[in-house]
């Protein structure tokens, strides 16, 4: 939304969300540190700090990566998605503490600059067992850093949603880097199978969730519409569209949402201008189509956000013949007013 930016746009739900993040992180750190100290009086502060922050960051990363596909599989997970970037910044902060403290611990006070030492101490890139795993962690941290610094809506708006989304998809690369950082790093020393099983279980869970969500979306994308007349395509009977809701159709490589509002049908492009959320999975609230992801709103008849906001999406023509909905997949310019089709 284009109202004046604030540092953090807190509202009631975001505050609850942030409190929950803080509580979960606190519980984890407290448990990890106190259990370690109970069974290992000899544990040192440095190692506790390095291990507690790194394991917490890896846990948070798994949660973050699971939220997306879970929401696509079941809408009731949406409240987790709403403020996911705060979870991401929290994860980055712990990863940064882990990374910078490890850099100090293992490389500082030596005959070489710590950052140069990070790249040059171990150059066994050809060996699996001796591989310099720290570099993997550093690259993952750089990706998390770029994501954290661009997590404000200012960047989404100015880098364009497409560039922003692409940048943030590098998190998948960062994830595999983190997994290998752990596997070629601490697991080579702490070779207890429990650690390997945990990381394996985490990876498999994420892979399954993403593939399930992806194949669900693919079904929608593979919809076929046989009946065509004068550029219009028959999509469904009118009765299938509930009031204040929409159905999404994939025609000519675009997703179009057909909304029912005040006994009329309107069609707009399915992609929200904010983060590309699925508008057709939203609902009409106060006369506006509301995106399920972050609540961005558009008027059904012209695809424009109500003032003072300035977002616009494409609109389409839709008509009803004998209780059947026909949709023309040729888009009008973003924000073009269309009359809609009256339901008799």
């Amino acid at each position, binding site marked *: 939304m284009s109202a004046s930016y604030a540092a953090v746009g807190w509202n009631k739900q975001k505050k609850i969300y942030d409190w929950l993040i803080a509580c979960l992180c606190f519980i984890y750190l407290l448990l990890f540190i106190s259990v370690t100290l109970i069974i290992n009086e000899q544990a040192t502060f440095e190692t506790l700090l390095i291990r507690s922050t790194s394991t917490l960051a890896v846990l948070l990363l798994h949660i973050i990566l699971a939220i997306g596909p879970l929401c696509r599989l079941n809408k009731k997970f949406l409240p987790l998605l709403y403020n996911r970037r705060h979870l991401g910044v929290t994860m980055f902060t712990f990863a940064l503490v882990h990374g910078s403290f490890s850099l100090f611990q293992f490389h500082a006070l030596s005959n070489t600059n710590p950052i140069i030492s990070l790249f040059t101490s171990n150059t066994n890139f050809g060996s699996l067992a001796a591989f310099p795993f720290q570099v993997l962690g550093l690259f993952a941290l750089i990706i998390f850093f770029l994501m954290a610094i661009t997590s404000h809506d200012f960047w989404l708006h100015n880098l364009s949603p497409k560039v922003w989304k692409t940048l943030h998809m590098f998190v998948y690369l960062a994830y595999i880097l983190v*997994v290998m950082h752990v596997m070629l790093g601490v697991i080579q020393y702490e070779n207890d199978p429990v650690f390997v099983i945990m990381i394996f279980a985490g990876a498999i869970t994420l892979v399954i969730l993403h593939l399930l969500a*992806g194949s669900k979306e693919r079904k929608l994308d593979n919809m076929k519409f046989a009946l065509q007349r004068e550029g219009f395509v028959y999509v469904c009977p009118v009765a299938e569209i509930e009031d204040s809701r929409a159905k999404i159709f994939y025609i000519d490589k675009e997703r179009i949402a057909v909304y029912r509002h005040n006994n009329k049908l309107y069609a707009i492009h399915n992609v929200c201008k904010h983060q590309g959320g699925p508008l057709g999975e939203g609902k009409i609230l106060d006369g506006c189509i509301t995106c399920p992801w972050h609540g961005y709103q558009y008027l059904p008849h012209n695809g424009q956000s109500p003032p003072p906001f300035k977002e616009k999406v494409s609109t389409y023509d839709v008509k009803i013949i004998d209780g059947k909905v026909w949709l023309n997949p040729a888009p009008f310019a973003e924000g073009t007013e269309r009359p809609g089709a009256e339901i008799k």
Partner: protein
Amino acid sequence: MMRSLRKRHLQIWSAWALLLPAGITLAWLAIPYQQPVKLLQTPAQELLPAIIQTKEHDDYTLNIRSDHSHTVWQLEWKNKTTLNYPSAVIYKTTVHNNDPEKAELVGRIEARGDYIFELSPVPHNQAGLKFILYDFIHEAVIDTFIFKNPFRGPE
């Protein structure tokens, strides 16, 4: 979400479905195995058969050993836990002396393992036998043990 991104997601995760398990498995198999070896031992003395006196502590056990004819004597030191001192040296002395400088060195023990030290004879008229476990780097007595003088013979 845009279609290109949707497609990219599915492509990435299909690739990850193969790469992640492969990477994890390979890295797991690559954990180097360090073969335990036989350690270098100083030639061990023969342990004498009879335990004459013994003292138990949470961290160690001390035995005074002898052969059946009571002609040779040994101090056996068995660590039960890992000791944590920069130095741990055993001295043998009379009951009233606490100064290691005036005592005779028996030997040094390390953090783990069992040790056997030969004991030099003590005058028969000496009342008892005292061992001092001394950390001479911190200049502190760690522990003292008083035994009956075994050289007086069995009572």
